[in-house]
């Protein structure tokens, strides 16, 4: 049995963990990181990055399909395209490979020692790792738990065979003929849309009255419209019941109470993610919990001294960039800097078609807090650049305080609006007022002009509407 000691031990090399380790390494903290699979975690390996690769491939395929069908308004026509999904997946895997290798390289450059294997707490200062070469014991002054999350499994639809999680969906070698998606949240809709574009007949089953329930109806309307245009069938208020006896269909209790049978060769279950709190010895250290999550304070400290937790294991929103910011902060705290969580917004992007971006408070959230607001939206149908991209659906919406025009929230739905999240986040984090956005020159012609116009409109003098 081998033993090593270090100042900082990070368990899990997902976005939160690897950022934490790199930053700690930069700051001269003697750091070890443990990862059971590959660096990059869910995000790089089976989440954000591969899904975006597949979504892009699906978009491209749909475009050329439309051109081949002679329906392209751009006047381009060509012969029918062919799809080799295995090659697409291989391309996606190369991207993932480059990124995970890159992360490993960055860790090495920051002089972080990487240990591959499954970690398990022995006590609050000691972790044992089952590596290929035997048991490795690591003693650390400070330990950061960054174990992440895993897809939620439904008891009546256990993963395996036709029932798949997002992980398997990203590695399919063939486009399923018919795909049933259980759960109309962002993961299900992103992947469902991609497979619909690749030619699958997709049905989405959502238990709540509408898709993307965390967003307001105004924001999700263009997405619902697009799903319909793509031929995706959306059953809201419907409950999945299980597989049919033959295993070739999903049984659903529809909103009206009647039973429906949805023929599908694959059933993708995307009903959420759960914190990964089992199998690594959490019971040995008995940390306070917040529901299923590990309870943390504004410095990501757990209830045990010297143990921090970051990322999905600590709660919503389960987003890579939240974990990254927490990881960076914890590394600096460990290095002796004074830091605490003071972020004003964690922007969120949903890569549906069209994309949805949110930062800060929605109009309803602001009102619920008792704040008097001003809010307006500017539609992309009045934006020149959006027209040239065939992306006139959607809008940018700003929520500001009525009294001093402080921007509280910015939402957008539209083609490619994910890139606007940077501007939205910056505006809120800097404490911008409507006048700040209105007084900033936004380059023409870009979709970002809709952001400027939304601010002007909220101030009562939009120029292009």
């Amino acid at each position, binding site marked *: 049995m081998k033993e090593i000691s270090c100042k900082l031990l990070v368990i899990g090399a997902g976005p939160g963990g690897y950022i934490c380790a790199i930053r700690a390494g930069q700051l001269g903290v003697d750091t070890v990181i443990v990862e059971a699979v590959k660096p990059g975690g869910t995000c790089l390996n089976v989440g954000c990055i591969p899904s975006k690769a597949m979504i892009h491939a699906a978009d491209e395929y749909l475009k050329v399909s439309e051109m081949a069908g002679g329906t392209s308004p751009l006047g381009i026509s060509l012969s029918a395209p062919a799809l080799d999904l295995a090659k697409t997946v291989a391309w996606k895997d190369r991207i993932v490979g480059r990124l995970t290798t890159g992360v490993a390289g960055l860790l090495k450059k920051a002089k972080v020692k990487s240990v591959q294997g499954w970690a398990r707490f022995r006590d609050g200062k000691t972790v044992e790792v089952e590596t290929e070469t035997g048991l490795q014991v690591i003693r650390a002054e400070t330990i950061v738990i960054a174990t992440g999350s895993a897809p939620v499994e439904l008891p009546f639809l256990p993963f395996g065979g036709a029932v798949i999680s997002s992980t398997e969906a990203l590695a399919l070698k063939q486009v399923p003929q018919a795909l049933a998606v259980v759960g109309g949240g962002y993961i299900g809709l992103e992947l469902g849309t991609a497979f619909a574009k690749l030619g699958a007949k997709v049905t989405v089953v959502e238990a709540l009255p509408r898709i993307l329930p965390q967003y307001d109806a105004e924001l999700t309307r263009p997405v619902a419209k697009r799903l319909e245009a793509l031929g995706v069938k959306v059953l809201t208020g419907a409950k999945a019941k299980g597989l049919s006896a033959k295993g070739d269909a999903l049984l659903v209790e529809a909103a009206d109470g009647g039973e429906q049978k949805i023929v599908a060769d694959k059933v993708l279950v995307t009903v959420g993610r759960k914190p990964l709190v089992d199998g690594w010895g959490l019971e040995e250290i008995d940390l306070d919990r917040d529901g299923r999550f590990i309870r943390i304070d504004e410095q990501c400290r757990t209830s045990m001294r010297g143990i921090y937790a970051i990322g999905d294991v600590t709660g919503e929103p389960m987003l890579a960039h939240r974990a990254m910011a927490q990881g960076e902060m914890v590394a600096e705290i460990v290095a002796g*800097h*004074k*830091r*605490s969580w*003071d972020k004003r917004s964690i922007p969120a992007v949903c890569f549906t078609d069209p994309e949805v971006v949110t930062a800060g408070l929605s109009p309803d959230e602001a009102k619920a807090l008792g704040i008097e607001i001003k809010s307006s939206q500017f539609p992309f149908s009045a934006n020149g650049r959006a027209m040239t991209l065939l992306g006139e659906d959607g809008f940018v919406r700003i929520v500001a*305080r009525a*009294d*001093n*025009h*402080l921007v509280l929230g910015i939402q957008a739905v539209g083609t490619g609006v994910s890139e606007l999240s940077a501007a939205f986040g910056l505006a809120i*984090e*800097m*404490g911008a*007022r*409507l*006048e*700040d956005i*209105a*007084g900033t020159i936004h380059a023409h012609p870009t979709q970002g002009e809709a952001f400027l116009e939304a601010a002007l409109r909220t*101030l*009562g*003098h939009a*120029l292009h509407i």
Partner: protein
Amino acid sequence: MGEHVIKLPDVGEGVAEAELVEWHVKIGDLVREDAVLAAVMTDKATVEIPSPVDGEILWLGAEIGDTVPVGSPIVRIKVAGEGGVAATEAEKPSGVQGTPTPDPSPQGGGEQPSIAVSKSDTSKAGKETAKAPTGSPSPLGGGARGAAATIGLPRPEGERPLASPAVRLRAKEAGIDLRQVSGTGPAGRITHDDLDGFAARGSAVPTAGLLARTEVEEIKVIGLRRRIAEKMALAKSRIPHITYVEEIDVTALEELRAKLNASKKPDRPKLTLLPFLMRALVKAVAEQPQLNAIYDDDAGVIQRHAGVHIGMAAQTPGGLMVPVVRHAEARDIWDCAGEVNRLAEAAKAGTATREELTGSTITITSLGAMGGVATTPVINYPEVAIVGVNKIMIRPMWDGTQFVPRKMMNLSSSFDHRVIDGWDAAVFVQRLKALLEAPAMIFVEG
């Protein structure tokens, strides 16, 4: 949506411009009719500008310290309520009058600026309105000005401090709780400067040894302070001062004053030394009229005044002010005392009018208990003489056979040496000395 443009009113006879010294509102504020919007200063009078309408402040047209020509727009107010009477009215005349131009020249002809100086004038103030110029509010300038009004305003309870990530990081590292820091930026945002200011004030943690301090605080010289600075510089650069100090035995005067105060009617003001000095001054300048004069040095003319209008330099919370006791020659000692009290109160309360603060022909300056032994008073330009009162002290005086305790007071007086010779100055002060040492002479005719 109607919009009211408020222009700088004619705040005094012959006044072409005024300095903006205070904003009472900021952009976005809702104001009621008659609520004070701003204060402007001309010469030494401060005039408050009320709102003629209910509405929301859209735009402020000047920074504190700016000099604004009479008639130029200073505030735009959005008339509250959509489609209301005010809003409808607002749209109509705009077609006739056209959009207001930012031309700062005073309004010509009979057109009234749309603002009244006082409440009584409000009614007759024309409901002049104008359509918002295209792209109307100027958010950049407006933000900065709006911010000026929010300086030091505390955040409402429970509201998170507003600051950029860089400011938050600096505060964290410096151990500063941003909730304690007031923000001067737009919407109360805490700026780097605010943090610097807070740190400079808050870093008074005593440490061992002496510390070198390098911070420099910049204070804009505005309003009354700027007026004083300009006037003092003018007086000292143009007038070659001659200062003459003489001691006065005020034992008899103080006895008389005490007796008069003890036996006075209850409705009469308490007498200080000032009314006696004023009456003595009236007597002295009757013999030397060249001292009660205005020297217009640009025109090369001395205006000798028959009326004695005595400026009395008074310390106010805002700084030095000089209210004027007019026609001291026509006032008896009680009347002088009453007027002195009234003007001192008005000056301290900031309610002195422009008329009460101008038109003096000679000035008395006194620092009272802080009077010191001697001073070198600066002449209240364009006058030619100023009399400074120093502190009364009991001093041992030689009466020819022995030292006796006497109440002694020095007078430090300055004269414009261009037009007053040293001899005349000495004669004048000696005359004052004779009057004050034998106070009965003040009250005797001839």
